[in-house]
């Protein structure tokens, strides 16, 4: 029984880590309708920047946690303003191709700057200890990840549902022309949302780095899982992303525990089943 409980904690922790990484992607897709395949690359930059900041310049995880997402947000700003904006009227295919191409460009830049070695980050001493739950030893950092994941979910929900900005964003999603006519600068809204997506990706990179490690092509590995979460949860739904992340985390953890050889297969199996019974994902918006 204890081992089931311990695996459940593992699964929830892994799931919320996935949520922290995926929520920015989901937000951008939900509001801009842009499937940003370079999201994984922004996540990777967050991780690599955090490495540089903690190892060479400041030695502080906290500064990395603050600075890395801001730098990534600047990259996102430049990408949105210069590359993505002209594609809004061209449709999804060109956006997908553009961001996918960008992912390769970023991959080579990262390899050029940081080389192809495996890197890692150490967490601050207060997080680096272990604690005991269900008679099992757990790294404290994993439990912190659960708290951070829930905090981000609550924050995103509050912003979207309770603030004026959230109302504008939701309105912009439903009817771009109308909200433009009402005097809201919709282009600015899109830029802001894309930058927030960048902040979340960078933040996810920093938070995930101590657990998942930093190495070349880490972004593609993560992107696949993020897309699976996105599809299962329902495209563009933050609540769906949260549910799907935890579901994928728990299913993958338990499949590793019960059928270690099948774990990757079971995740894609889960996606297939969800798509068959709920083509819009678990909590996806109804097709209007």
């Amino acid at each position, binding site marked *: 029984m204890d081992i089931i409980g311990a695996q459940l904690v593992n699964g929830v922790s892994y799931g919320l880590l996935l949520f922290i990484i995926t929520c920015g992607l989901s937000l951008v897709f939900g509001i801009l309708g842009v499937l940003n395949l370079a999201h994984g690359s922004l996540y990777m930059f967050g991780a690599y920047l955090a490495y540089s900041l903690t190892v060479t310049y400041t030695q502080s995880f906290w500064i990395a946690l603050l600075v890395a997402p801001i730098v990534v947000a600047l990259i996102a700003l430049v990408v949105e303003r210069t590359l993505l904006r002209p594609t809004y009227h061209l449709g*999804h295919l060109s956006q997908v191709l553009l961001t996918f191409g960008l992912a390769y460009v970023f991959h080579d830049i990262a390899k050029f700057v940081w080389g192809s070695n495996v890197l*890692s980050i150490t967490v601050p001493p207060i997080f680096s200890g272990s604690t005991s739950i269900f008679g099992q030893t757990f790294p404290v950092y994993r439990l912190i990840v659960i708290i951070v994941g829930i905090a981000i979910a609550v924050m995103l929900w509050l912003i979207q549902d309770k603030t004026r900005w959230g109302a504008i964003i939701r309105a912009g999603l439903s009817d771009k022309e109308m909200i433009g006519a009402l005097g809201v600068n919709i282009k600015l809204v899109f830029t802001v949302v894309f930058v927030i997506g960048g902040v979340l990706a960078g933040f996810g990179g920093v938070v995930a780095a101590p657990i998942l490690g930093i190495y070349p092509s880490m972004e593609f590995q993560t992107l696949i899982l993020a897309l699976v979460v996105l599809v299962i949860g329902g495209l563009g739904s933050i609540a769906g992303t949260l549910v799907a992340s935890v579901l994928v985390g728990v299913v993958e953890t338990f499949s590793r525990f019960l059928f270690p050889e099948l774990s990757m297969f079971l995740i894609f199996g889960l996606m297939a089943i969800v798509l068959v019974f709920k083509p819009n994902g678990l909590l996806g918006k109804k097709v209007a």
Partner: protein
Amino acid sequence: MNVNKKLFMFFSLIFLVTLLAACGNSAIQSNSNSESSNTEESTEQQGENAGEGTIKVGSILPFSGVYASLGKDLSDGMKLYFDSVDWEVEGKTIELIEEDTEADPQIALRRVRKLMDQDNIDILTGAVSTAVAYAIRDDVDTNKLPYLASHAGGDDLTRGQRSDYIWRSSFSSWQIGHSMGEWAYENVGEKMYVAAADYAFGREVSAAFKDAYTAAGGEIVGEVYPPLGNNDYASYLTTISGVEADGVYGFFAGSDAVRFVQQYEQYGLKDKYTLVGSGWLVSEDLRESIGDAAEGIFASSFWDYSLDTVENQEFVAAYEEAYNRRPTVESLEGYDAARVIVEAISTLGGDVSDPDATVEAISNVTFTSPRGTIEFDKDTHHIIQNMYITETVIEDGRTENNVIHTIDSVQDPGE
């Protein structure tokens, strides 16, 4: 968003997911071709009209993709040795032609054919991925091209897939896994758990370990094979922590090794079970990233940075001076492969026109390498070498490996 757009998004998404899952790595790898062709030109010691006075050595290594750092170390090691003989042997100039295999068997095969047909190479070396070595095996065999495998460790290359023209100066999976078995039984305990990455190499090494360990009298209480490139070991580690055992045998390399060793400590397993594995678990280029979690690991390898021999100290000093970083086991493999080639050419008096004479010369090469004395087994075409057990300790605030035990002249059984 209207219905059609939504549907389109769905299909393109699913398509992309499958695409990424299926060929993620190979797609990534095709990026940096140009990089390798630059290295290629820079290493060519002679111009286009290199004629009679040159011996052409073809080298197939991954310079992009997941194994890129291994390819670079192998290449640097080779060049270090060729530099030390001024790229000359018996009055002939050595010309090294490097090709990027990207760890993809199909690409490797094309590169090898290019090396044979266009460059007319005399000797072939390299291959990090064993799948690459198997893929080129038949072409090498039918064209009678002397090939010295300098990394790829798949057992079968010098067993079922053996060829008159293929010799191996690196290691076999069997040597890596088997050498740890008896030692672990005598020094760690009677019950062990096995965790290895789920790919051919991980399976072969752990199978060899299990054979040797159970033959010595030990009992394997459980085993688990996480996928290669697995990003989180939490679930596996929780499973292992519920098991009665004295130690864990772990076979992981690269980023897998970093995560496994770090998480092994974080989940409190380090205090319960001794962790043993192969040299790649605590290799020179990973230990800095792993940090103190590597302390107390026992590993088996055929070379270690800390080996206290004159040959090794000279090699390490020369390598550090040339590249300003520590050599890895791959650097050593490249260095030794280059030396085997040079010594073979030397016995032939510089005449490599007859492939049968060339492989005969390779088979007779023996010398004291930085890893100890090496020679070839003429039956299996595989190297006979010492294996070392290392212990990772903390010295001056960083982890170092110490050689604590030597197993002399380990010979692959060849079947």
